[in-house]
């Protein structure tokens, strides 16, 4: 197995852990919100989900940087490094990190923060898969903004529907 395949597989693993961790954190957060309080067991479950998500982010970052080194060796240059899709992925990764810090210091509403985090993970995954995407950076970021709003309302709908059903 060459470095390119190894790093790509790690990159996919990081994405899977991140998207999976954030999805399950949302699902459990909705489920646990039923009685309005988080007990020790529920806290532990959410902590594990966040741990998986953080592990995914670390794997994703290192494998991504490894791939960048390979691109640099092959002199792929501005066509790849300055492509709107790549720049948008980097921006979303930064948003992910910033939101994690803001949520930690309670500087952002937890519901909004977790929505941005989940939407960012899915957006990064979609951008990674959608290789032929031919849009400008600003259009992609605008699409990301719309996606965040959609995810917010989707999670709100899921939360209300679940609470009504119980």
């Amino acid at each position, binding site marked *: 197995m060459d470095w390119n395949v190894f790093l790509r597989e790690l990159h996919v693993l990081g994405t899977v852990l991140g998207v999976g961790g954030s999805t399950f954190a949302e699902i459990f957060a909705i489920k646990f919100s039923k009685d309005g309080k988080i007990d020790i067991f529920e806290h532990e479950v959410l902590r594990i989900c966040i741990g998986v998500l953080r592990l995914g982010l670390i794997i994703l970052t290192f494998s991504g940087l490894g791939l960048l080194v390979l691109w640099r060796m092959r*002199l792929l240059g501005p066509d790849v*490094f*300055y492509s709107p899709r790549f720049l948008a992925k*980097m921006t979303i990764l930064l948003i992910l*990190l910033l939101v*994690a810090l803001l949520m930690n210091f309670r500087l952002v509403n937890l519901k909004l923060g977790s929505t941005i985090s989940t939407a960012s993970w899915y957006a990064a995954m979609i951008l990674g898969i959608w290789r032929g995407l031919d849009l400008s950076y600003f259009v992609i970021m605008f699409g990301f903004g719309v996606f965040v709003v959609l995810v917010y309302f989707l999670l709100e709908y899921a939360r209300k529907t679940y609470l009504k059903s119980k």
Partner: protein
Amino acid sequence: MTNTLIFFLVAHIFLGTSGIIFLTAYLLSIFKKEADFKWLKINSFLALLSFIASWITGGYYYTSYYGKSVKPVILKGEFSWVHSILMETKEHVFLFLPFLTLALFAVTYFAYSDFAKDKKLALSVAGLCFTIVSIALAIMLSGIVISGAVGK
């Protein structure tokens, strides 16, 4: 590029990123209700070691390869501003990181027992840590943009 240079470049990136991760972990745990000061000390120490090692490996790569082989290519190309603005900024601001991290480690090592009592001190330390993480992230992003300026 020789294997040694590739090793130094990869080590420079790996160590710098590790430093950011250690300090982010520090930042995420400083205000926990039951903050583990042992981990605050370990994280700040590992970040200090990472930045010093990244400094040395990056310095070796810069002086023995970048200046002779990469810089002229970037300056001749369409994105010459990448060197004249980003690299020039990166190579100077980069000098601050180990010293700022040393200050963070020293405060954590000698005054950690006051963090829980003195919220103002804890907030200032968190501010210092956030500043280091922000600078390091900006430097990392600059590195990516600089790598992107070298094409065929």
